[in-house]
């Protein structure tokens, strides 16, 4: 297909415009973290470093970040194991009910968060009689994180094909040896990409978290929601958001580098 220079230019303009709209509110968040006006009126009334200083000494924010990191690490670890097992089963074998199992993996993310949230809230409190807390949040997050690992690994398995594994088996390697030396090395970057996505998903989740965290469990999104409408705290929330955006560039860059190296030319 040959595109005229005009069409290309229009597409480039649209792309630039889209990115501008995507980044304008984020830049506003950055600017507001220095804005002296607590209601973030435009144009800013003046610039200050006060919010950054206060955010630095905010114990609430720091504890919330630690809780969120714990939750995200634990649920990502569970999702990595379960998602990999599931994708190996669904990609390498065919069996009765395969489509239903496939749908079951997708369901926790395809159904709205509020449904997952209330269903798990009801199951934990009403059916199982478990106290809500850190553990229930981790279980809930792991459940909807499985699909991100599953999708990445499954896509990789599909592209890999089974011939290397068959060759390994023909040469006398056992099931475990084949997985360790043949399958796993090829999956590594897919696992990393899926794991990063799962981590991000868990780190930012608010709706399911609201329903599955007890009163004492404050993840970062819950802390943000609690402080967003407090005039004294809202600017600090902006600072936390800016720090997160800056930090997020690191894992994204790693993921890009790895997937770029693995894919080769188009």
């Amino acid at each position, binding site marked *: 297909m040959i*595109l005229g220079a005009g069409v290309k230019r229009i597409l480039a303009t649209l792309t630039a415009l889209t990115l501008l709209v995507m980044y304008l509110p984020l830049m506003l968040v950055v600017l507001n973290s220095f804005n002296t006006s607590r209601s973030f009126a435009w144009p800013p009334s003046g610039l200050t470093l006060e919010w950054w200083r206060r955010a630095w000494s905010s114990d609430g924010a720091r504890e919330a970040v630690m809780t969120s990191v714990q939750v995200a690490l634990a649920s990502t670890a569970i999702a990595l194991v379960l998602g990999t097992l599931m994708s190996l089963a669904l990609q390498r074998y065919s069996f009765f009910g395969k489509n239903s199992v496939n749908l079951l993996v997708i369901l926790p993310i395809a159904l709205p968060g509020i449904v997952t949230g209330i269903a798990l809230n009801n199951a934990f409190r009403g059916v199982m009689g478990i106290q809500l807390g850190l553990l229930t949040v981790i279980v809930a997050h792991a459940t909807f994180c499985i699909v991100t690992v599953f999708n990445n690994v499954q896509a990789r398995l599909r592209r890999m094909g089974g011939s290397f594994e068959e060759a390994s088996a023909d040469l006398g390697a056992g099931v475990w040896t084949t997985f360790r030396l043949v399958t796993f090395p090829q999956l590594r970057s897919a696992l990393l990409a899926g794991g990063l996505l799962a981590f991000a998903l868990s780190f930012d989740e608010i709706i399911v978290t609201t329903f599955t965290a007890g009163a004492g469990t404050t993840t970062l999104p819950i802390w943000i929601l609690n402080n967003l409408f407090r005039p004294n705290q809202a600017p600090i929330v902006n600072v936390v958001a800016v720090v997160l955006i800056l930090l997020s560039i690191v894992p994204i860059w790693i993921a890009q580098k790895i997937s770029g190296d693995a894919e080769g030319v188009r």
Partner: protein
Amino acid sequence: MSTDTSRAAVPSRTAARRASSLLTSKPWLRLTLLLTAPLTWLVLVYVVALAALLVTALWSVDSFTGEITRSLTFDNIKEIATESLYRTVTLRTIGVAAAVTIIDIAIALPIAFYMAKIASRRMQRVLVIAVLTPLWASYLVKAFAWRSVLSDDGIFEWASSKIGMGTPGYGITAVIITQAYIWLPYVILPIFAGLERVPNSLLDASGDLGASAWQTLRTVVFPLLKPAIIAGSIFSFSLTLGDYITVNIVGGANQMLGNLVYTNVGAANNLPLAAAVALIPIVIMIGYLTAVRRTGALENL
């Protein structure tokens, strides 16, 4: 690698060896071992929870004690089926979700096409990072950023008053704008991945055979891309369908289905009614998923 392989080929402990050869000869045993853990988890945590939700929707709350009465009744279902409030809110929610999805697809198609087919390899990588980064900014902060953008003394009012317009203020329009903004990367990425899988040689062949760019898009690219577009739409539609926080932040006094569920769990303390309301998005999403399943969209999520 070579030393590793030679070491592995030597039969080590016999028990492990026997287990391995048993597994090699019995594919169903391997499958069972692979499936047991994830399937048990999903069934125990999720299927049981959904089933319990369904049962809870058939219970009721004693209006005097506030305790849940565990006898089956269809009162809740009847209430959401007949009360006009639920119909209005359901239609509004579907309308918002559909609008968000259509806007996102319309914005995502050109940028995804540029990323996949026009941008250089280097540029492409930069663009993927540029699209991914906003995902990491907190959802709440993005919603709140739009609250300040759209407020009466915000940047939108400031900029648009110069061309004689004003901010739409807080309401349904603000909800649609904010949700479309927040879920946009979730729609761009599957469509970009889908476009990357369309081989350039097909596009060249179509061009060589005399098709115009538009014809190629319509008859070659679009059919191949449909599953990816639907996959993206599942995200934006479902995520909007259950949202109640953006509505609280920029929606003014408006309610969506999520708000009805949330207030019934919290303030009204009526879990059975909340469960019954939650069945509405479940039915909508399951209907949507079954409708698109044949297109292969679920493999593109």
